[in-house]
């Protein structure tokens, strides 16, 4: 029988075999087997390995949520703060010791609902924090309620007749806040994540990574692996991420093009 434990073991095995293992903590991620977060984990770990950053000089800051558990699955220093407050804490960490590389990670509830008031400000202050928004359009840890990015009609226990509110577009929001680096990515493409992260870490200011991902346990309809794979695609070859107006147009015209959407000229 293919038990959950078996599936998970396979998954971990695969990651281990990839050979870039060091930034992973010894304890296994407690995410559900098949969760998109494993892909982000791999993408970020590979970024760290490839940049050769010393683990003791990295701080991974998070709020609360399945995504928020990330620091426990990483061998960097970690700061698992309260729900929604990863960005203020990350601001403090970075300003206190600018030598540290700071990653902030969190879910869409953490970052767009309770913590939604902080994003405009870290962006306008252009604090050199790399923020990975794990956007699965659901509240995973609290067992499946709609999030600010859930599409209209999302049915959950908390919305048995379907949601009625328009979803928020995190990429568009980050652009409108004047973020200096904005990328849109997909958990099913860890390589793409690694590439964009490497570029973003080098951006000497706030870098925002809007990562589409899936909650295999609580979302069987919308952001499924199947859908996301079908919907997402790379930005066109001639795309120029230095042009803010073009970035806005791209995001207004296409919800699923992936890559570095905007990068302020320095």
């Amino acid at each position: 029988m293919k038990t959950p434990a078996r599936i998970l073991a396979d998954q971990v095995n695969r990651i281990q075999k990839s050979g870039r293992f060091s930034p992973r903590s010894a304890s296994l991620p407690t995410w559900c087997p098949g969760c998109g977060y494993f892909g982000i984990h791999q993408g970020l770990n590979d970024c760290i390995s490839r940049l050769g950053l010393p683990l003791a000089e990295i701080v991974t800051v998070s709020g609360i949520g399945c995504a928020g558990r990330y620091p426990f699955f990483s061998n960097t220093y970690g700061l698992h703060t309260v729900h929604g407050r990863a960005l203020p804490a990350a601001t403090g960490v970075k300003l206190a010791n600018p030598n540290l590389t700071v990653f902030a990670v969190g879910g869409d509830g953490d970052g767009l609902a309770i913590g939604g008031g902080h994003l405009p400000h870290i962006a306008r202050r252009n604090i050199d924090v790399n923020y990975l928004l794990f956007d699965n359009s659901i509240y995973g840890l609290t067992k499946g309620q709609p999030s600010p990015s859930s599409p209209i009609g999302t049915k959950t226990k908390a919305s048995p007749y379907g949601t009625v509110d328009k979803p928020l577009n995190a990429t568009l929001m980050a652009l409108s806040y004047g973020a200096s680096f904005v990328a849109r990515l997909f958990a099913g493409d860890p390589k793409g994540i690694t590439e964009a992260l490497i570029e973003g870490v080098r951006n000497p200011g706030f870098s925002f990574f809007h990562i589409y991902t899936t909650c295999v346990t609580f979302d069987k309809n919308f952001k499924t692996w199947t859908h996301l794979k079908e919907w997402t695609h790379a930005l066109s070859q001639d795309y120029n991420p230095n042009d803010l107006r073009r970035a806005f147009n791209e995001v207004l015209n296409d919800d699923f093009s992936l890559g570095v959407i905007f990068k302020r000229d320095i």
Partner: protein
Amino acid sequence: MPEVDFTVEVCGMAGDGTIAAGGLINEAMSLGGFSVLGFDSYPAEIRGFGRCVTNSRIGSNDIVALGEKTHALISLNDEQSRSRAPFLAEHSLVFFDSNPPAYVSEDNSLLSVLPPGEEVFGMPFGELAVGASGSSRGRNLTALGGFAAVTGTDPNLFRKVIRDKFKSKGEKVVNINVKSFDAGYQYALEKFSDRLKSVFPKIETGHDPQKVTLSGNQAIGMAAIDAGLKLYFGYPITPATPIMEYLAKYLPEHGGRVVQMEDEISSIGAVLGSFYAGARSMTATSGPGFALMTELITHGVMAEIPAVILDAQRGGPATGLPTKTEQSDLHAAVFGGPGDSARIVIAPTNVEECYHFVIRSFQLAEKYQTPVIVLTDFFLDNRVENRPFIRASEGQAASWNVFPDDAFKDRYQRYADTPSGISPRALPGMQGFNFTATGLEHTEKGSPDYSSENHAKMSEKRHRKIRYALKDLEKPAEFFVSDNLDVGVIGWGSTFGSVLEAVEKSRKNGFKVGALKITSLFPYHSETIKAFMAKSRRVLVPELNYEGQLANLIAHLDSKPVERLNFVTGAPIPPSAIQNRIEELLEVVA
């Protein structure tokens, strides 16, 4: 008929149908005429690794606390169930899957950790289910069948509750599930024919139709609906989420609406806005969310706007222990927030009170125009009781709003300083009563005014009002109280059941012990509490927190030092722990 007091646990992984099996036991036993108190716990939050445990205590008399020792354990996953072994009573019955879906090594087997003397019943749960239904999903039901057979429970009780549970899914599903149960039942009858017991005698009176099996969360949701709740604003948080989910499902058909807000601050903000505009509304949260609400709660105090806030406590501080129970937000509920911001805080002690207190909270909020905080905790929210339960009539849930007299039109003073401190409150839409509600200190009319005289006067008015509210707040209830108690035990919230059971047992041992139940935590009936303390040679306050938060509140009422019994285990206090402490104190007294 022998007295029944039997505790059964089901333990498995998430996905094993553990919670469902426990629920069916509760329902079946309730139908059989027994008293039931059930409680589920799920330690891990992230799925895929979760151990689920249900605990059902079944008795022929009233059950007020959770069972401490388990008389039967149904293991759906042996690796997980090992953790339950220490809680087994002597000679308990252990049901396990003799051919489990996942291989469990010898070292991790359940049997290897069982204390000697337990009676074990191995059954191929999965195979039996496959045989009955073609799928192993009914493993939990075959296990129940085994349990029913061995314990001598009327199988029709189970068949009925299984039918009820699956009714909405159609006859086919119902039959498959009953068949799974029967497969287990038959198997066990035959296989264990020489070891069958008769644990659950048929109770002659049978099922009391007024007995409803209800969790604290359901009672709270029902109460809100029966109170005519118009708007629920909330943000998911364990263990309060089920209230939102219950209301999301049932409130719309009663004309209300659930709005999942962006956080707890906006939730309480919207609750205040709705009450200001005249609609009953509420929010429910837990400690971390409650902390975020305190600024606006004090706004309700100052601007005299009603609000109903339920704090379903969990382990703290901070994010703490989200799925564990604790009574450690009392300090914050009574004292949190800036300024002299007295508000009303009440705490039910059982499922029935959850229902009645929530209805009352709307009325108190309306009459006293102030936030009312209802404190529950995970153990109370998530526990199931099957007590006779009468829903409130419309009259009993009627509005307690106090509206201004038409005579005051065009010269209305929103914050008129009346003898009770209650100022009639106008609602938007009422012509000629326009006013601005404000969190700034203000005159009777409502204009900002920071003068010394005004602040002194209005502070007095607001506190007078809260003192006055005492007359509508339930008095502490005395149990077994005589003029001279050797030990008086004071309990609150989910813990009171354990207090009561401990006191009863101590009395059976011949000791002069009494109990006081405090449900009105702020303002509180200091005279009654004082009198009880005075009557008791020793006063004991058992609480599920480290700091002794109720003890801190009332310690000054008597010159004797209060004895504290604090548990910070994330689990209900076992009655025996209280009983032991009582009897230790008695030795000292003696």
